[in-house]
């Protein structure tokens, strides 16, 4: 962890064109489709890849480790099961 580099504006522009804005669309659909049936799992963390549900875990770190075990670096969705999901405010971002 010793290399220092700065992305150039050209690379940033290129990234805008090539980077998917949200890579977990299917996983989020799977989560939302099942959420109503998970009332008894409130607060637990679920791991989802595509339409597949890997399992439920008591804490985020356990869920993340399980995701890495099964799916490698990702992408996959680790999500806490919440009936009312918070909305976070981000200041200086492109929307």
């Amino acid at each position, binding site marked *: 962890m010793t*290399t*220092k580099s*700065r992305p150039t504006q050209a690379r940033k522009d290129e*990234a805008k064109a090539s980077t998917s804005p*949200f890579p977990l669309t299917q*996983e989020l659909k799977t989560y939302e489709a099942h959420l109503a049936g998970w009332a008894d799992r409130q607060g637990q963390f679920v791991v989802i890849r595509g339409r597949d549900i890997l399992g439920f875990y008591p804490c985020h770190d356990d869920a993340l480790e399980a995701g890495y075990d099964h799916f490698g670096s*990702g*992408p996959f969705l680790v999500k806490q099961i919440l009936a009312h999901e918070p909305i976070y*405010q981000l200041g200086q*971002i492109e929307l």
Partner: protein
Amino acid sequence: MPHITVIIGADGPVIDLGVAVGRSWQRRLAAQGIVVPPATTVRALIDTGSDLSVVHPHVLHQLGVQATGSIRIRRPGATGGFRPASVSQVQLTIGGLSPGTQWVSAQVVGVAPSTPTVFALIGRDVLEHCTLFYNGPRRELTLSH
């Protein structure tokens, strides 16, 4: 308590931020003998208007860091609407890379900052561990962490 003083320029208080692969994934790569992508330093805006810290998706891609979470986001003052955004596991260090750098694990939101010269936002999830002194007349900001 280490402290860093930055000039408040046209973009606001901008500081170097080291970004590295998350600790858990880094450990797994190392165990398999796979070279861990080197950490990088980016320009980051200190953004007290952000609940969470943000890293540009390209920087995450450069590190090989994938999305492992999703949250709902909106801009301050917006009412009602939100959009999903991906979250990734990384390590951060304020002030950039230097010998003896101390890394902290963080979940960052993978969206592009609106300022073209800035590739990350340091939000209140990180700033809650810091003390800020904003010296308007001298156009300086001192951050202790």
